[in-house]
């Protein structure tokens, strides 16, 4: 009936067919509601649906009454290479306060029916990865039917329960929220809320700040891990495939591709953490620079920021020291030394920065720092005055093209002049004594 109306209205108003159709459909809605159309639902096809999917997945169908889910367990044997040094994990889990062994980590990733994250968004597939006795253990749970959610969540909870350290990609704001929502919607308690969460999206942004076009997992895979997936199902199709599966359409191969997509995401997470730990470990050690994979680079300033804890301070210095050609690193180094009250060292790096060609605001910042160190810590007012004079000179040169306008220029100049006057006073005072 809908189709007939649609065609009829296109015939009548060819130039406005879209508009008319929308309107006709609304009318049609009205007549259909009055006619109370009922959908023919396939009778008890559920069981064969699950079996047919599972035949392709090779998991186990776990049932309780009419509810059932598919569970997949795989062992990935430990290969010859040993797992990398995980001693730096505690840097990524600062809340732990102690070394975190790899086998305490649980990697997870979900596939959902939408991206909005509201009460109506469901996750129907969740993949886990953890380090077991003799290799990696990979687990997936799949929600066969929406009415089996309770059984599904019980399994999810059991998997999360023994763990307190979780690793995900964008899971902090997305996956975890949806999981929490679903537990609330089923009136169940989610123990996972207790755990500590490492979101590799955040560490990726940090390690490769300003170096990647975006930080989607697929971009990171491509640019960093040098992996290009073939035959992968694009993420945007996932909700529609599941929707078709629920409605009994024959899309088992696509559904299987969703399982593989989820598995690949999880495996990437594991590899990504390995790579990140390796970069963190080797950063700052000149001799090992060659061993970093391929074209792999990192942002030294933000990586050094990871090592802000006292016991890693030297590491941060080393990382920046090994990138001295880079102005940002030099600045980071100077600031680091200043923070640790090594003023001579700080001065050395600030002065080197001062010689580099930099923007006006950058120049003013550096000269101010130098002048402050001379004035307040080394108490060499003459030197402080010298750098203040340099600032005034450069400022005055810039009067007509000061980037933030005349008023701002006047303000800046006033600040510098005030500093200058104060220093003059101090010099005069110290001479008198």
């Amino acid at each position, binding site marked *: 009936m809908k189709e007939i109306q649609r065609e009829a209205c296109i015939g009548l*108003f060819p*130039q*406005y067919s*879209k*508009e*008319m159709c929308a*309107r006709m459909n*609304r*009318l049609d*809605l*009205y007549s*259909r*509601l009055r006619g*109370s*159309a*009922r*959908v023919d*639902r396939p009778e008890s096809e559920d069981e064969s649906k699950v079996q047919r999917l599972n035949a392709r997945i090779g998991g186990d169908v776990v049932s309780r009454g*009419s509810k059932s889910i598919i569970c997949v367990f795989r062992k990935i044997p430990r290969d010859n290479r040993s797992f990398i040094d995980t001693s730096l994990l505690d840097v990524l889990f600062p809340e732990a306060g102690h070394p975190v062994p790899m086998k305490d980590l649980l990697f997870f990733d979900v596939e959902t*029916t*939408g*991206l*909005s*994250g*509201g*009460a*109506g968004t*469901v996750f129907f597939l969740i993949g886990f990865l953890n380090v077991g006795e003799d290799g990696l253990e990979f687990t997936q749970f799949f929600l066969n*039917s*929406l*009415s089996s959610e309770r059984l599904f969540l019980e399994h999810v909870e059991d998997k999360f329960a023994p763990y307190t350290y979780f690793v995900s990609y964008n899971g902090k704001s997305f996956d975890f*929220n949806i999981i*929490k*929502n679903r537990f*609330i*919607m089923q009136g169940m308690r989610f123990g996972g809320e207790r755990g500590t969460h490492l979101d590799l999206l955040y560490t990726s942004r940090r390690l490769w700040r300003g170096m990647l076009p975006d930080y989607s997992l697929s971009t990171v895979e491509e640019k960093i891990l040098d992996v290009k997936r073939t035959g992968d199902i694009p993420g945007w199709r996932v*909700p*529609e495939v599941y*929707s078709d599966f*629920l*409605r009994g359409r024959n899309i088992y191969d696509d559904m299987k591709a969703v399982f593989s997509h989820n598995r690949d995401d999880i495996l990437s997470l594991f590899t990504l953490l390995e790579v990140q730990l390796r970069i963190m470990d080797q950063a700052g050690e000149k001799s090992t620079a060659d061993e970093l994979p391929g074209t792999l680079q990192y942002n030294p300033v933000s990586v050094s920021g990871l090592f802000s804890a006292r016991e890693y301070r030297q590491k941060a210095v080393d990382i920046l020291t090994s990138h001295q050609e880079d102005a940002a690193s030099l600045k980071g180094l100077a600031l680091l030394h200043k923070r640790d009250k090594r003023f001579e060292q700080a001065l050395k790096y600030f002065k080197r920065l001062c010689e580099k060609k930099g923007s006006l605001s950058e120049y003013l910042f550096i000269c101010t720092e130098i002048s402050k160190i001379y004035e307040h810590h080394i108490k060499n007012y003459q030197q402080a005055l010298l750098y203040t004079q340099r600032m005034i000179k450069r400022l005055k040169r810039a009067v007509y093209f000061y980037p933030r306008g005349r008023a701002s220029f006047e303000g800046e100049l006033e600040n510098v002049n005030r500093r200058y006057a104060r220093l003059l006073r101090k010099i005069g005072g110290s001479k008198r004594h």
Partner: protein
Amino acid sequence: MGIDRLYTHQAETYRTVAGGRHAVITTPTASGKSLAYNLPVLDGLLKDPDAKAVYLFPTKALSQDQIKGLSDFRADDVRLYVYDGDTPSSIRQSARKNGRLIVTNPDMLHSGILPNHPKWVKIFDGLKYIVLDELHTYRGIFGSHLANVMRRLVRIAAFYNSHPVFIASSATIHNPDELFERITGVKPVVISKNGAPLGPKHYIIYNPPIVNPEQGIRRGVVLEGTNLAKRFIGNGSTTIVFARSRLNTEVILSYLKKAFRGTADSIAGYRGGYLPNERRNIERGLKDGTIKGVVSTNALELGIDIGSLDVSIMAGFPGSVSSFHQQAGRSGRKRDASVSILITSNSPLDQYIAAHPEFLMEKNPEAALINPSNIYVLVDQVKCASFELPFREEEAFGGADVGDILAYLEEEEVVHYEEGVYHWQDRSYPAENVSIRSADIGNFVIVEMAHGRRRVIGEMDRATVPELLFENAVYLHGSDQYTVTRLDWDKQIAYVEKSRPDYYTDAITKTDIKILENNEEEHLATYRAFLSDVLVRTTATKYKKIKFHTHENIGYGDISLPPTEMHTRSLILSFEAKLFSGLTRDESEGLLLSVSYLLRNVSPIYILTDVRDIGTAQALKQQVIELPTVFIYDKYPGGVGLSDRLFEMKNEILQAALWRVRECECSRGCPSCVGPDRYNKKVCEKFLKHLVSGLVGIHGKDGNE
């Protein structure tokens, strides 16, 4: 805060709510309604540390105003949050976690809070009070949506085992209890007896003298209003003038500022969009006497507090009895005398009120109407509701049977049925696409093209576009004149250019109405009345070019736009053919036009609505009924209940129309009665008398008793 004792209505509200009963407070403006509901809620929240409350205000400005009043209580244990579009995300999180009292608006509740209820578990868990301020503003399509938003809220609260008490405040309307019940689904205790002291108050209705007896034109409300205001302000009385449009506000303001040239700062203007501190300045100025006069649009009508004044002047009937009371309530002193003056304009409704002031003083006949079962509204809302919680097969949605809608949504593959439950199963976020303030989200943007630059100068709703924004239309905006150069129907943009032709354009539209289904039917002596679902189809085919000042017709043009169609509800009146005997075809058509003009213009007496929300159409011989017929229909798709009330009140409305014609002081017919250029006053009066007397059984021989 230094409250020694309560007014009786405040005490009654406290007792009602503390006793767990729902309440609606309908005492006048400035009677302390906020305190009436704040008191039991804050008391409840302080006594029960798990209890939470949600306050809904129709606008953001009102929320901000109320927060100030609430924080004056210094109930520090009750963490208070405004949650609206302007709330920064860090505060949003804290509101969800620590909030005890959330102040928000219906839009935010609909699209932000309810669809994310698991994030708000702390609020829903223990949700004990819902406060709806300015309940009467929730009417028409907005109210119809809100009623469904409340159904969703109640449904979610029940999921968390909470069963909140509803407290509402409302202007005086005919049916506060009915409106409350239709919106919240529960019956309230009506608290209407005002316990606040009030000095003597005078109401004056001033109908300015006729200056053109032939056309029945009276002296204008702007000048009359200005003159009255001048005298009161000159005598030292604080005065507020309400004008019916922004333009009139500006005009009166400039006249008054000129009149008080030396002390122009003592006159202030007030429009929507003023910031709270600007309002505070006016309020302070009125209190300390530096401001003597305020000129306002209806923006000051809602419960924003500016203190109370000596005189309120309404330059034109504000459109509804409840608005009249809201505006009149701006003047009122605890001990001294105060006065409210209504200056009536030429419009039929104003003239009706002038002749029947009892409508203002007796029980307000205006009903605020909503139709939560409007099919378009309901389908959209059921979508949103099923996103929030699955529907059980036999589950009712606040009393509405939604089985058919769920089946429809299943067919559309938006929900998925499993074992007696409909689950949401779609990637979208439905609330995002449902606007609760309008039936149709397709507003057209008006873009001015000048010197290669584009500038947006306004918006227009889709239904009006074919009448005013067709290509080559002369479009008047403010005091500027534009010509429409291109209308992009798909992108919903009208491009205009400044121009100065010496004519304006007037579209000729044709409205066809098809009756889909009669819901009610009544056969009377001289006419038949139907309440029906109809399909209204409007086509604009041509336009007239009309010369300014002389108003002569200087040409025609074609309009090529698709017809607009709308399914809605209508009151249909079909008249016995013998009532038209002796009339020519033209006269008969004119008579039908006059009758619909009158009915449309007097209906706001019984319905809280704008005349613009009511449409009319006529047929000399309606296809199915085969009689001369007029349609008075709801201009919202699906209808919002206006026609239902019109059907119910048809006798009263016909009577009111008769009175209007009979009492009009013009000689042959004028815009205040039968409409412009029609001059059929006698015929019309006789016709209406037949209808009215026919129904009470008195058959006058020729209508002259």
